[in-house]
């Protein structure tokens, strides 16, 4: 009897350690993988796609960590960073940069824009303490709607981006035209288990590893991880955990919240550049509008809460969430032909997990 008791206790401990959402979604993903295997879907394709999509989304998810740690909640205003990144991409194309220089100019410009807007956004969040999440959502919505006007009105001249007739930019800009499509993904790309030998450099069969993209994601993760071990980063976390105590210890909370949100916005801007190159297209207009929600969901699936997040949550959450979505599409198509179940699954899981996290937020008086 005693043994059984101990076992159940340790089981509970394991669940607590991993986190309930991570367990459920992770188990679901594994079940889908097994089902996919039974249906004869190529595992290496599934895994390659999972890696590709995780690499594309990773930095956007990482952007959640600074804002959550600083106590402003998940960055629902991620579209601010995203439009900064997109604007940088567009400007870099307009200036006529190609290939690697296009990428570097885009990232440099994106960081500049995101720092400015992130600063203003942080100031805004300090003015609306207590309702950050709602206001952030609408700030994000407003700025993407505002940029719809900008894409249409700013007189860009590059023929690679405009409509064939009339003014304004196209809804999707092909990055092939500036040799920017998959520029990071193809960097040092190799395939495991391709046709000739175990590892094929630049191979397109078997399990494809987009080395460049994974490296830049891990680099960003390492930078954020290191930053939150520096004095400045620890001060931010302290302010997030207990604002009053931090204030009493002489930490300037408002300044730290602004700093954290600048970092978050910059990560969002860099993230969309990595995303766009992986996808091969830069999506303008309404594309950034809803992009914050999958990123928030991913970090929550990884085990974060609305008030605590770690870099490990980002890595785990991104892989599980993107893996699940990648696997669900072919499996659902095999099982029920002609239904768009994976999109429905995404909506239910993504918003369900955000709602679950909101129920865990302590707040409101009663």
């Amino acid at each position, binding site marked *: 009897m005693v043994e059984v008791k101990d076992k159940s206790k340790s089981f509970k401990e394991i669940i607590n350690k991993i986190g309930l959402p991570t367990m459920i979604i992770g188990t679901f993903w594994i079940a889908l993988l097994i089902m996919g295997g039974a249906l004869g879907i190529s595992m290496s394709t599934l895994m390659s796609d999972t890696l590709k999509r995780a690499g594309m989304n990773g930095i956007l998810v990482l952007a959640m960590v600074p804002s959550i740690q600083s106590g402003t909640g998940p960055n*629902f205003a991620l579209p601010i960073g995203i439009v900064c990144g997109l604007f940088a991409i567009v400007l870099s194309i307009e200036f006529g940069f190609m290939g690697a220089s296009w990428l570097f100019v885009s990232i440099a410009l994106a960081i500049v824009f995101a720092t400015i807007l992130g600063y203003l956004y942080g100031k*805004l969040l300090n*003015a*609306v*303490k*207590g*309702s950050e*999440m*709602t*206001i952030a*959502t*609408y*700030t994000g*919505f*407003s700025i993407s*709607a*505002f940029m*719809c*006007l900008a894409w*249409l*009105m700013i007189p860009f001249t590059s023929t690679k981006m405009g409509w064939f007739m*009339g*003014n304004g930019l196209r809804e999707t800009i092909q990055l092939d035209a500036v040799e920017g499509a998959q520029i990071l993904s193809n960097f040092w790309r190799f395939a495991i288990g391709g046709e000739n030998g175990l590892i094929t450099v630049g191979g397109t069969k078997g399990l494809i590893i987009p080395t460049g993209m994974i490296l830049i994601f891990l680099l960003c993760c390492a930078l954020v991880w290191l930053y939150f071990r520096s004095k400045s980063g620890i001060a931010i976390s302290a302010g997030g955990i207990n604002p009053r105590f931090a204030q009493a210890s002489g930490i300037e909370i408002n300044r730290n919240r602004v700093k954290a949100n600048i970092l978050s916005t910059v990560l969002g801007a860099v993230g969309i550049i990595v995303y766009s190159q992986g996808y091969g297209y830069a999506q303008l*207009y309404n594309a950034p509008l809803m992009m914050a*929600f999958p990123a928030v969901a991913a970090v929550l699936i990884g085990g974060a809460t609305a008030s605590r997040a770690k870099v490990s949550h980002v890595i785990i959450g991104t892989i599980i969430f993107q893996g699940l979505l990648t696997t669900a599409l072919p499996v659902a198509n095999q099982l*029920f032909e*002609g*239904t*768009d*179940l994976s*999109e*429905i*699954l*995404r*909506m*239910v899981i*993504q*918003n*369900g997990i*955000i*709602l679950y996290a*909101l*129920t865990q*937020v302590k*707040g*409101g*008086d*009663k």
Partner: protein
Amino acid sequence: MNNISTGERLSNKKDTSWIADNIVTLIFVAFTLFGFLVSDGVTVNYFLTELSSRFFRNAFLVLSLIIPVVAGLGLNFGIVVGAMAGQVAIAIVRYFELGGYSGMALTFLLALPIAALFGYFTGALYNKTRGQEMIASLIVGFFANGIYQFLFLFVVGVIIKVPDTHPMIKPDGVGIRTTVDLVKVEEGGLKYALDSIMEIPFMWAVLVVAAAILALQIIRLARKKNTAVFTKNKKMMTILNSVICLVIIAISIFAIATDSGLMKVRKVPVVIGIFIIGLCVFNELILRTKLGQDFRSVGQSQHIAQVSGINVDRTRIIATIMSTVLAAWGQIMYLQNMGTLNTYGAHTQIGMFSVAALLVGGASTQKANIRHAILGTLLFNSMFIMSPEIGLSLFGNALLGEYFRTFMVYGVIGLALGLHVWRTNKKAKESLE
């Protein structure tokens, strides 16, 4: 207006100017006037026709937001869930071809339990996400949309077998079509089932409404003449309102008598009008009952309400259920006027637009009344009509107006919410110091 405590009323006088209070409303008035100035394509007739049909479609939905605000739940973006309930009821009635006037009544009846159930769940969720209701209500709309699509795209056809020859079902027998024709009411459908019962010319409706408001103002003036609450400012407003009513009455009588161009504005549906007025009266009356008092006390302080023996959680759930059911009915009225059910799109924007309309009318997360809802619906829809015209005449691009419209919707919600929180925080800081 009624639910401001005395303390708040006193402090309001001191430090907030009228312009800061009504900045969002003023922006919209200025925008619409500007639209009239720059665009020459819009005739008064076209504008009024569009405005009246949009008003009758949307007013009920906007009014359904008031109760949750009074009960302290903030702006209920979750009326999307109610709208879905309404659409489920319509789909059922349409599938079994139970149209006509009785079918319409059945739709309303069917929507009631479905929406009440959804409202109960949403309300329970709001109780779990106390303090974050607004973002929760937004997300719950997205979440419910997933379930709704699962139901209509997958369950119908795969789990519930349906004949693929049915006009509502997609040709492959799985899922409901993207657009479903609701069929005219004479042919046994739901289209115009409420509108077609009785329609009167626009100017007659204006005349009746203006006369009714005038009568109301006079009664108020006579009854509250000597009470202390009836301040000088309010008296001025009442007299001003009466004068405006008189002018409108004069214009409408003139238009009817001379049969001028204004008589060509599309006729208005009386039944919907009665429903809207009915809901206004309902909203006013419920605040005078015990339940309405509970709403207000919970809205002001959950803690004090709890201590004074009110079941806070239950009251909040009731408020959510009411709002959800009313939204379901509002959506049914909206769709019978549209004539087609846009199965996967009709409900998605409802929450956002209705909230924006209410905020444009001058409401905030803690204060909303009928005046805000009606004024807001009129102003918000004016902006909607004018935006493409302004885009076209200023920049030669109607698409620009469309994007501008979306920007205004999100911007207004963000601005109004942000200003409110900012001012509340500032006030709290001042009182601390």
